[in-house]
């Protein structure tokens, strides 16, 4: 079974704080992703990584950064949290593209509230 875990289910932070969200996968997947999910907007891609130390911007990278020092771990960083970053954050992983795009496997999500 593919297992993607996220460091926290619920997190409450204050405006201006630096926030770290951690994601670990145990299936040796090359690709890892960070999304946020908001009512009416669906899942939106923040950043993804296709290899260690590699990262690509998604559709909404502003206000976020990422780090991938090891293959199994992908971190999302909010440098200075703001109230509009209150959301559900979802991490996912998938095997590398071999001519096709493969399904992504998601973690349970982190519900972040910024006050």
């Amino acid at each position, binding site marked *: 079974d593919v297992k*993607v875990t996220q460091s926290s289910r619920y997190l409450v932070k204050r405006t201006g704080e630096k926030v770290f969200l951690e994601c670990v996968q145990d299936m040796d997947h090359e690709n890892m992703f960070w999304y946020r999910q908001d009512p009416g907007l669906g*899942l939106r891609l923040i950043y*993804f990584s*296709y290899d260690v130390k590699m990262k690509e911007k998604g559709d909404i990278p502003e206000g976020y950064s990422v780090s991938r020092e090891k293959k199994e771990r992908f971190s999302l960083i909010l440098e200075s949290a703001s109230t509009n970053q209150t959301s559900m954050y*979802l991490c996912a992983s998938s095997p590398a593209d071999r001519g096709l795009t493969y399904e*992504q496997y*998601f973690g349970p999500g982190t*519900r972040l509230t910024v006050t």
Partner: protein
Amino acid sequence: EDQVTQSPEALRLQEGESSSLNCSYTVSGLRGLFWYRQDPGKGPEFLFTLYSAGEEKEKERLKATLTKKESFLHITAPKPEDSATYLCAAPFGNEKLTFGTGTRLTIIP
């Protein structure tokens, strides 16, 4: 513009009442159409991948089909435990999936 659109937004069915959810997409050279189930407060759970028009996949009471412009998720004789939000997604660009906003399905006992 590449898009994934799901309909209806919400659907309420009586237990045992079969129906279909729709996912239409506008992307050339489709490299997969993905269906997920999401329960409240949880991450999406992968259901199916379809790669070519005419392909069908089944799992219990669910069957996914694919044409050149849309995919359907057919639910046969649903049970209350099938209640969830169903998401479809298609890849636009290398490795990235674009998700629809989902259909919230409620099965009434």
